[in-house]
């Protein structure tokens, strides 16, 4: 593995499988009464969040704590960041405090890349979502979840058909998923109105379509992306109602899916917009399980970036 996790493209197939296999081992912990390993005792993990994202932050926090790391949460709200301190000065402060890893969420695409490559800090950088660029640990937890349901919990996702629906243009989740799923051999189709597909999407390792109904019958997994209602004010679509009618996953559409197919969503959901409540709460919905798997996958990432060894060799713990 590389020293940082900035993009899903940083992971080749072996790296990705190592993370997923490690996460699977760590997941067994979750079933134990004492959910804690001593692996990262004495190491410091900083959660540096410039955007509100309670769910991602607590997922990383839980992951680090279960590995016995010291966790420092640094959020933009109520910190010097809101007084105009620069990313650089924040980074230098964290470096002075001896951060071994910095988990960063930032509204600006490429901010984790700057943090990792500007010489401001020495530790590993984990991208926890940057602007409209990437969110690689989300893609890893999604792949982990798909592997459990569609591939018996091991190996890759060769030949599995994944339909990703919604605001691809603004979605860091979609970008990371397309890259990682392609690495793992899955066949991805992005479905969105033409206004919400990026320029150049034809160069991505996936197919695209404007027609959701055409990509349900043979899907193994359907991933619905969050769509902000405010997008209609910039004319990306005429109204929330029309969006929902053309691209929302409702019970009628869910019924077209094969029996084994799962429904996913990175959250937070707009119930009634991109996903109907009855779909979100259906048995085939794995949305809550995605959150659970997120902790295991982030444990694996922190473990591999900071620990460096495989779990089985025993010497590390």
């Amino acid at each position, binding site marked *: 593995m590389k020293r940082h996790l900035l993009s899903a493209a940083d992971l080749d197939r072996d790296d990705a499988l190592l993370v997923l296999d490690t996460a699977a081992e760590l997941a067994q912990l979750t079933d134990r009464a004492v959910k804690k390993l001593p692996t990262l005792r004495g190491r410091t993990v900083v959660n540096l969040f410039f955007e509100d994202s309670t769910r991602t932050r607590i997922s990383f926090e839980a992951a680090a704590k279960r590995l016995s790391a010291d966790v420092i949460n640094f959020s933009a709200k109520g910190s010097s960041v809101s007084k105009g301190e620069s990313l*650089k000065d924040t980074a230098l402060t964290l470096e002075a405090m001896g951060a071994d890893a910095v988990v960063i969420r930032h509204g600006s695409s490429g901010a984790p890349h700057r943090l990792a490559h500007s010489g401001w800090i020495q530790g590993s950088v984990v991208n926890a979502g940057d602007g409209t660029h990437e969110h690689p640990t989300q893609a890893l937890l999604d792949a982990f979840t798909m592997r459990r349901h569609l591939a018996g919990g091991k190996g890759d996702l060769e030949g599995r058909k994944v339909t990703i629906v919604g605001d691809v243009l603004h979605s860091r989740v979609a970008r990371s998923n397309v890259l990682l799923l392609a690495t793992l051999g899955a066949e991805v189709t992005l479905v969105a109105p033409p206004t919400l597909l990026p320029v150049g999407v034809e160069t991505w390792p996936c197919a695209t379509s404007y027609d959701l109904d055409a990509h349900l019958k043979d899907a193994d997994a359907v991933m619905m992306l969050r769509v902000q209602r405010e997008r209609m004010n910039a004319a990306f679509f005429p109204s929330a109602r029309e969006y929902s009618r053309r691209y929302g996953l409702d019970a009628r559409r869910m019924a077209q899916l094969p029996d084994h197919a799962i429904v996913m969503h990175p959250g937070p959901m707009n119930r009634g917009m991109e996903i109907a409540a009855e779909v979100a709460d259906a048995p085939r919905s794995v949305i809550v399980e995605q959150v659970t798997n997120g902790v295991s996958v982030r444990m694996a990432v922190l473990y591999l970036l900071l620990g460096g060894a495989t779990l089985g060799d025993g010497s590390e713990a």
Partner: protein
Amino acid sequence: MSSDTYVIRHARILGGDPADLVLRDGVIAVITAAGAASAEGAIEVDAAGLVALPGLVDLHTHLREPGREDAETVESGSRAAAAGGFTAVFAMANTDPVADTAGTVEQVWRLGHEAGLVDVQPVGAVTIGLGGQQLAELGAMATSAAQVRVFSDDGRCVHDAVIMRRALEYVKAFDGVVAQHAQEPRLTEDAQMNESALSGVLGLRGWPAVAEEAIIARDVLLAEHVGSRLHVCHVSTAGSVDIIRAAKARGVDVTAEVTPHHLLLTEENVASYDPVFKVNPPLRGAADVEALRAGLADGTIDAVATDHAPHPVEDKDCEWSAASMGMLGLETALGVVVEAMVETGLLDWAGVADRMSYRPARIGRLDGHGRPVAVGEPANLVLVDPARPTTVDPHALQSRSHNTPYAGRTLPVTVVATFLRGRATVLDGAVVGAAVDA
């Protein structure tokens, strides 16, 4: 007038055979066979192997004064210009306060005069405060001591078609020209880089080529309709070159400039997320670079203009979206043009003189610059060593800022000497201080 007399020996004028030049009383007094010149008490300059060009003229420079003296001053920008081989620069109007009154343009002009290293010719704003709503007092600026002839809201586009039409018409009264920053504002809201497959991958908001091309297409039609002169700033796309080429073929009085960085760099640099490559208009694709080079070579694009845009460290040493747009250009322009245009065989030295001196001076109506290297002409000259590469060190530049995209890069030439009206502003590659003359 200062009384130094220079004898420049063995200089290759526009790359031709070696000759001696005598500079006296601000003009080129003698051009004679190499080694043959003699002048009593003259300072000898050994120019063996050096190419002599007319002093370079930059139509597009941001000197930041008044308002952002932490980034650049007229004096530091003048030093940078002289070091780059320039003898005249046009100072853009987007200062703070904006150069939209006779008072402000006269202030900039006077600061340039006091620095005395290049002729600083202020550009006046088209609209008050660059607001795009109400014409600034263009006539007052034209008749001020600064004698403004180029008007631009650069940094902003004069996007209102009626305001643009009126400006084009109005400046005819004093032979002015409107220099348009062609950027359709709605298509480029919060734009961060060229819109392309790469912007999609990097998750950076796109600045589509059509936002530039649509404005240029409209403006050449407006200029044609009202019979006015239009200048297009920093053309950056292949489509823009096509539109301007077609307009010129139709007889529209349009001129255009391209920056050195758009002749050499591509959007691939943005993948580093290093804001030193953040610039407006953005770096484009390789096909655009090719088209811009071809357009400059065939004369569709008249001039190279630097868009020299100094920024303090903190405005670049940050995340991409928080960074300011713009890059330094004055001290690297000639080297970049030689690499992109001369070494590729697209321009010879006479072509460089035409695109970096003659034509920009004519577009800006700057008498006394952009003149041939000939007896009786103003002694505005630059001596270039075509065999001595320069490695760019951001902290060795004359500019007060360091935001050059060429740090560590080796450019093929070195500016050895610059003369402004017969007085050396640069000798042996070093700036030699301010003027006392004129």
